[in-house]
């Protein structure tokens, strides 16, 4: 167990250092901003001030609307978290079966159109895909799945939550990457001896090949997709009026509201690094040789 703890400690330190690096980069960019505003100071002192504010999680005031950033960013962070995790789940839910199916079926009859479909769907530009889904759903179900409609207006609550997650999960070319990775990895593992051996013992191919063939590539890719999904979220939130960090980032870019953007970048980095920690720990757990 001690090796396990060692890994966790190493990861946390690494993340801590990285987060400081990111805040330094953001601070540099922050100071390059033309014009004069509150958080801008000279030299290390104000950098420490920024660090203190970031690490103690109360981020001061946005220069445009004067509202305390905490009250804006945290609900947005929660919403984006829901969206990101949901999208990851949807991508996996679809990509893994297709990947397994095309790995087993190879390039024959109906495995080819399925993986091609996954390529097409995941290459649809997210901004168009969102609107298309919105238009079709509102035309044929009579509900307009906009985040707000459900909170106090007509329209089904589930649909309003589901659609942005579905769109971000399907689009944003995450599915085709996962499908391709699983197909290649699974092919490689199926042809190894130990799978043949376990088949000889009567185990199903999938059970024996799942460990190295699916789980490990999945863990390594899923968490490295977090930054892309947050990026995609910016656009999906814009389309579905989903009050998440992405839309806040877009709005503050329009208003040139740097402090809010810096905080959003900081929280996104936190999300990415937490994902990385989880990834490394899981990988270590699954793959002893990676000690």
């Amino acid at each position, binding site marked *: 167990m001690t090796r396990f703890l060692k890994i966790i400690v190493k990861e946390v330190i690494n993340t801590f250092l990285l987060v400081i690096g990111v805040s330094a980069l953001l601070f540099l960019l922050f100071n390059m901003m033309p014009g004069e505003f509150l958080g801008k100071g000279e030299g290390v002192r104000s950098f420490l001030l920024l660090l203190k504010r970031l690490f103690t999680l109360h981020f001061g005031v946005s220069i445009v609307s004067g509202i305390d950033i905490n009250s804006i960013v945290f609900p947005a962070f929660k919403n984006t978290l829901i969206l990101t995790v949901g999208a990851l789940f949807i991508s996996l839910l679809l990509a893994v079966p297709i990947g397994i199916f095309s790995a087993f079926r190879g390039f024959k009859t109906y495995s080819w159109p399925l993986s091609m479909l996954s390529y097409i769907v995941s290459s649809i530009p997210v901004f168009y895909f969102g609107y298309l889904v919105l238009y079709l759903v509102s035309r044929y179900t009579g509900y307009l799945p906009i985040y707000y409609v459900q909170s106090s207006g007509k329209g089904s609550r589930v649909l309003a939550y589901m659609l942005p997650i579905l769109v971000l999960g399907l689009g944003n070319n995450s599915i085709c990457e996962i499908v391709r990775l699983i197909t290649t990895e699974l092919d490689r593992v199926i042809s190894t001896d130990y799978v043949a051996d376990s088949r000889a013992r*009567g185990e199903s191919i999938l059970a024996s090949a799942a460990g190295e063939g699916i789980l490990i590539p999945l863990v390594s890719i899923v968490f490295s997709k977090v930054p892309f999904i947050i990026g995609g979220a910016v656009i999906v939130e814009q389309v579905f009026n989903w009050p998440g960090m992405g839309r806040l980032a877009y709005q503050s870019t329009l208003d040139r509201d740097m402090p809010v953007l810096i905080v959003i970048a900081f929280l996104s980095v936190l999300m990415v690094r937490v994902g990385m920690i989880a990834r490394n720990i899981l990988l270590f757990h699954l793959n*002893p040789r990676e000690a």
Partner: protein
Amino acid sequence: MPLIASLGGLKVYFYDQKDKRFIRAVEDASLSIDEGSVLGLVGESGCGKTVTALSMMGLVDSEPGIVGGEFYFRPKGDDRRSVIHAILRGFRESRNYRRGELVNLFYGLENFIEFRHNPFTMIKDNEKWLRRHNRIMEYIRGRNISMIFQNPLRSLNPFTPVGAQLMKTIGRFNHEKDENEIFEMAMGLLRSTLLYNPESIMKMYPGSLSLGMAQRVIIAIALASNPTLLIADEPTSGLDTTNRYRIIDLLETIIDKMNLTLVLISHNIHIVGLIATNVAVMYAGIIVESGGKRDVLGKKHGPKHPYTRALVSSMPTDSDIKRGKRLRVIQGTVPDNKIAIRGCPFIDRCQYAKGKIRRRCREKCPDPVEVGKNHLIRCYLYY
């Protein structure tokens, strides 16, 4: 002793997309395995002995795979009914699917294959055949026949500890047992394969096992489901000499203790000579000679088939080394298995195929002829 399995006329082809030609892995292999015996299957590498073993286990996936032959096998009591049910699925009339207690696992193969000649074409629905065959073999693999592969380290799942793999296999076959009973059985198995500290081995990952230990674990796992027939494909070739003999002794004790039937596949005739009761010699996809060890390798009147004779003489025994005899090498190479052989495959390298006999050898491959008590030879010398 009663037969436990008998392979008749096995024909396994693979297909090379680029050259549009068939790779004739196994041309015509027939074996009969008595219960409790040790059958040694010997032949140079590339003669199809591994493919024969794999087709017995039903693990030949590539196309077209098994295209001919029948494999009669006697499943254990409790699996008999489900195996028969699986075999007869989809067939209204059931002709000779059974011979005594043995059941033909390749039953109905011909319905999936259509042959045409000039040019030689074949249509096989391999997907349907595999789906059907896997359903049949589901009751056979592990339960009745289990198999050991060549390189022990690569046959163990590197991501799960050894113990877990062993217990999982045990658990699969005796559902009713609970956790520590299975643990006990696993320990017992590990001790039975002469591993001295089973507790620590249970927790280790395959990566940190030595070759010898790994092979023993593989054997333990294979026996976990107490099969009736064990196929060992080159179990000793990956090991150094001391381990090699130790594994042979281990196999010998296991067979006696668990009245197991063993099919030992090896290219080393001496290893086979040590423990085999019957021997079958394979060359270029054909079983050229099969019979009791004494008849085939026997000192009294020496090996019969030219290839067997050449094979035996080319392997130096300890006494040869002592006497410093010159090694005798078989000229020529194994014929390319892409080209259909009309005559006897050994014709180019056989020193007896001279004069009149050569003509017969070239036209047609000799059918097996009974020379002694169930001692068959495919050579015109003995017609």
